[in-house]
């Protein structure tokens, strides 16, 4: 099923453009000890995405938590070739900012509407980091999204 795109406006964290399939979690992500940097899979025991990799996805999450090794894990994921294509998050922290910078993928935050409510896993998402614009094409949804 295809529907009209939803546009979100936010602020650039890291520039560049990328598009891909969204991977959405409502839970914050721990980098060190929460992600396997060589596969991009979430490993945190009680995490809803446990076992799922963010490789080549558009990662949509509330924010970063946990160890200060966050940036090293995401930096290593870039070197290992398992980085997400882009990142979208709500809560700005030093961990998320530095991680996004060294991962060198487009990244946007501070949206006019909540991306966690509007994007579902499987949606096609285009991230324009330079202009802070995110375009969502809802795909494979059971119920049509409310824009």
């Amino acid at each position, binding site marked *: 099923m295809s529907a009209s795109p939803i546009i979100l406006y936010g602020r650039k964290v890291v520039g560049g453009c990328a598009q891909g399939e969204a991977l959405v979690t409502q839970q914050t992500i721990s980098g060190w000890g929460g992600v396997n940097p060589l596969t991009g899979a979430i490993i945190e025991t009680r995490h809803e995405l446990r076992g799922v990799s963010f490789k080549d996805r558009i990662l949509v999450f509330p924010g970063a938590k946990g160890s200060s090794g966050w940036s090293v894990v995401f930096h290593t994921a870039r070197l290992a070739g398992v980085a997400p294509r882009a990142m979208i998050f709500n809560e700005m922290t030093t*961990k998320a900012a530095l991680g996004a910078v060294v991962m060198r993928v487009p990244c946007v935050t501070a949206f006019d509407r909540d991306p966690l409510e509007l994007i579902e896993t499987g949606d096609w998402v285009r991230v324009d980091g330079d202009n802070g614009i995110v375009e969502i094409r809802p795909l494979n949804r059971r119920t049509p999204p409310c824009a």
Partner: protein
Amino acid sequence: MTLTGDEQAMLEGREGRARQKAMELLVRYAEALGAERFVDTTNVAGVPGSVTPFLQRYYRDRGASYETIFSLFDLDSDEVVEVPRMTTHACHLQGGVDPENWQTLGAKPEMLEAIRASERSAADRDIRILKTCTPYLAGNVPSRGEHCAWMESSAVVYCNSVLGARTNTEGRESTSAAMLTGKIPDWGLHRDENRLGSHRIEVEVDVQSVMDWGMLGYFVGEIVQERIPVLTGRLGRPDLVRYKHFGAAAASSGGVELYHLVGITPEAPTCEAAFGSTRPVETLKYGEAERRRTYDALNANGKDSHVDYVMLGCPHASLEQLREISAWLEGKRISAHCHLWVFTSRAVRARADQEGCTRIIRDAGGHLLTDTCSAIGQAIPPGTKVAALDSAKQVHYLPAMMGIEAWFGSTRECIDAALTGRWNGTPP
């Protein structure tokens, strides 16, 4: 953002290529944060140029030297630059292996050599090799209001909350860049207005023991995530060890970088001072039900009562903790089916050596190790299936990272598990 003259000079390369690359990274980082300026810092704690098996392999074609890793990884530069002496007081936190007990930790001789070489390169550049997650127990104790740039979430939360110094949770790349430039984004906890409380936690059960403080920290972190909790109620007066376990737990289940204990910590003489003009977004209670739920969550990965590994010293043990552990072990022998590893800093072990703790732990069949821990080093005794831990932080990470079961309890319960090979912990 606004740059000062010296910042502009570094960015233009007038202070050398390494400082230029460092400023470029810091500007990218500051813009990502939305910071408008930098703040000067002379106290930086990180893991500059740390060598890992992955980085050694990845940069092998480019020599994998200290300068290669520092340039390409720490400074996220696309070219290798000459790395000069650091500008600020700089210290190296935990990592690598204990140079005296690397075989116990299962390290390969070539990795030990690489780590030693990296350490010499760091020391040559004026970096203090503290090799601990508790720099405040090894000679780096910031003063109130001091602007720092620290890594290590458990040290950051201690630095802000207990000492009243100021740091965000920095990462490896930002601290390495700050060591060269003496600059860090003026954002977050460097600014007065961002140090006020967000959540009020009413503690309705007695919080006294180290284990009590660990559980409370784990509960608080999960609730407030990255926000700033203000705690009131039936809190005993914490000592250094209790602060250490509380903060480490809150920075693991959540991302707590600063908390206030009303009437106890330096920026919270009163509840009004802790909140300032802000209003708590939420008021929560910590009672018996919350405490039990936290205990159960921390023990969610414990099934088999046969314990084959006990790990203590997360965050790295203080001398007082080592004296307590060795008092319980003196004249005893741990179970033949169980390993006991206790982690601390080199500075504290030097004292423990002199005071006899190291010998007592060894005579009982355990090991006192430095530099790392099981989670950081991903090192557990061969064949470990079930661990017993007295740290909420370690129990949060270790089972997930190493695929083992783990029990959480008091230090005494963990020592008993080491002596008997069985878990016999009880809920509070």
